[in-house]
């Protein structure tokens, strides 16, 4: 049972629109710092474009490194959106309310960033568009639909489109609220964006139907996106990539890292935007309980992946697993990965006090994502290092400064985009909060006032 916190509509408006209607100093400072980091990463990319991919740490057998790791990582993070907004909305979990928009927005920005990664990684990024869009029709050259690299953009652009629609549909009532509270050109812009929203019953009904429809339609994407991304590896001939378990393993891993990222985001938001009235211990507690299940399911699939390799005892595959598990530096990275993404956080989440502590949850959720980044790295690089029984490949991959800068830049980019979004739109849906309040408001029955619990929390 949740505490009942009664907030008036005026208070909800005031607190959630605080950053939108005025610009605090800390916001300017954080945005400028993030902007500087992103600018640094952009110059690193320019340097790489100018010099060639030689400035990375990639070498002959290891053709994929940090960029592809980062691509998988951000697609993984984006899975939080569909998990939180669609599944929790359809299952009518009340505690989703304060986190739906933040999760969905993070999804959109994470997907945009993930789409950048293959672009950065390609040898000739300036010619990349006919990878997806066949522009030279006259020559009859089309993308090869047998290649998983064509399935990837298809899946991700589908997800990006539906997520953007989702964010926008849920944003319309709030846009109208901002429109009514702003003046001048801002009022015009918000007015156009709000699509003439007046909050009449028919509009609410249509908006509700659109939300439910999009939630339902987005569900197949939930399974497909990371499955398809995993087939980049699954359909290849590389030992230890060539496994059937990759699709579910990647999907559940994506949910693990994505939901953890939502926890991180919620806690930071609560602190920065002073949302103590909206994000409670109970919310974080509920997500942490979800995370225990997701993490354990993920561990099961990880275990399957390992067991399948041990079962087959195929020589090349065993060589790859030997490298991952027993040869430094990979053995150390493996240890950090498994400890960070399961062994430390999950037992801690068993304790109610940890689940309800914002500090603990912040650090454990960050830990999970460090671990999950390493997981992708450990899947990709060691497999390429021991791909074939040739003698010249016994070197390791060391990411260069350019690659590290671009990874840091991608994190800064997502946070920057979220910060900019929060300046123009409320990060917590105002109408969802008000709806939640209505469901627990007191009602007067005769001469008695009783709490109306329309929905169980």
């Amino acid at each position, binding site marked *: 049972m949740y505490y009942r916190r009664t907030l008036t509509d005026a208070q909800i408006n005031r607190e959630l629109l605080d950053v939108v209607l005025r610009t605090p100093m800390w916001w300017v400072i954080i945005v400028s710092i993030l902007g500087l980091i992103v600018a640094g990463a952009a110059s690193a990319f320019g340097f790489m474009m100018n010099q060639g991919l030689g400035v990375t740490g*990639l070498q002959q057998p290891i*053709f994929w490194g940090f960029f592809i790791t980062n691509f998988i990582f951000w697609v993984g993070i984006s899975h939080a959106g569909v998990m939180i907004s669609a599944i929790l909305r359809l299952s009518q979990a009340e505690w989703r309310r304060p986190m739906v928009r933040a999760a969905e927005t993070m999804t959109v920005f994470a997907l945009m960033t993930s789409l950048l990664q293959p672009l950065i990684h*390609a040898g000739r990024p300036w010619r990349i568009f006919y990878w997806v869009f066949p522009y030279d029709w006259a020559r009859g050259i089309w993308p090869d639909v047998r290649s998983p690299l064509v399935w990837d953009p298809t899946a991700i652009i589908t997800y990006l489109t539906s997520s953007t629609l989702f964010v926008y549909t849920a944003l319309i009532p709030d846009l109208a609220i901002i429109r009514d509270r702003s003046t001048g050109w801002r009022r015009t812009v918000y007015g156009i964006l709000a699509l003439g929203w007046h909050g009449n019953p028919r509009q609410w009904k249509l908006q509700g139907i659109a939300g439910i429809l999009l939630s339902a339609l987005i569900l197949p994407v939930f399974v497909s996106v990371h499955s398809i991304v995993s087939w980049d590896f699954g359909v*290849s*001939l590389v030992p230890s990539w060539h496994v059937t378990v990759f699709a579910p393993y990647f999907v559940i891993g994506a949910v693990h890292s994505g939901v953890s990222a939502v926890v991180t985001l919620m806690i930071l938001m609560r602190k920065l935007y002073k949302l103590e009235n909206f994000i409670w211990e109970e919310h974080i507690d509920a997500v942490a309980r979800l995370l225990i299940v997701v993490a354990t399911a993920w561990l099961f699939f990880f275990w399957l992946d390992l067991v399948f390799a041990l079962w087959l005892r195929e020589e090349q595959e065993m060589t790859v697993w030997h490298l991952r598990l027993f040869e430094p530096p990979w053995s150390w990275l493996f240890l950090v990965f498994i400890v960070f993404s399961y062994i430390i956080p999950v037992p801690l989440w068993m304790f109610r006090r940890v689940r309800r502590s914002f500090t603990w949850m912040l650090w454990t959720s960050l830990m999970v994502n460090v671990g999950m980044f390493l997981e992708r790295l450990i899947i990709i690089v060691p497999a*390429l290092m021991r791909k074939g029984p040739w003698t010249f490949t016994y070197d390791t991959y060391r990411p260069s400064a350019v690659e590290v800068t671009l990874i840091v830049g991608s994190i800064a980019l997502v946070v920057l985009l979220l910060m900019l979004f929060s300046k123009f739109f409320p990060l917590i849906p105002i109408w969802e909060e008000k709806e939640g309040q209505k469901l627990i408001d007191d009602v007067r029955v005769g001469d008695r006032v009783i709490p109306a619990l329309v929905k169980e929390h």
Partner: protein
Amino acid sequence: MATRTQNTRANHKWGMVIDLDRCSGCQACVIACQAENNIPLNDQSAFLDGRAIEWIRVERYWEGDYPDIKARFLPVLCQHCDNAPCESVCPVYATYHNNEGLNVQVYNRCVGTRFCGNNCPYHARLFNYWEPVWPEELRNQLNPDVTVRTRGIMEKCTFCIQRIRRSTRGGKQVEDQAFNPACVQACPTDAMTFGNLNDPDSRVSRKWEDERAYRVLEGLGTNPSVKYLKQVDAHA
């Protein structure tokens, strides 16, 4: 709409047989390939960075235990697999199979995703990390028949397609041994044989059926167009 040009090519299926009994690991093939195909000079730093470009390389490995140990050599080049793993993963058709059994790399189409390189079990595909440069005095020795590859794309052995094209111009059927790729031509021990597998009387077709013949990593089902003749020790 695109119009398809009529196929005027003769009936060729190019293949190669490498007799390991004859191979001494001298690397003449490597150098010949380098000169013929405009491959940049592989200096020490290229090898240390793991970025040396060799369309054909000689793998050296040991067989047996000391003192009864033998050095074995295996020249590895693109195997021109009939069921090539590199082809199906390229999103832009930069690599495909042509009707002469060649696995062709189209430099202009390549965007450098490097998936083909990952998927090649023979490590025959190489990536241009830098713009290739030659010392000034070597500029004029570049082969005018071969494209100089830019940075950011994949490249690999072509079975010296420029020589194939020159000999088969106008849909001409080639006589056996009328020409050879640079590596075959340079081999001092005559370990390599190249030719048309569709011609049952060609030298390569006869060696193709040799009882010592095998393909490398045959279990992967890539069905290469290159066969190796197993080394047999006389005093084993």
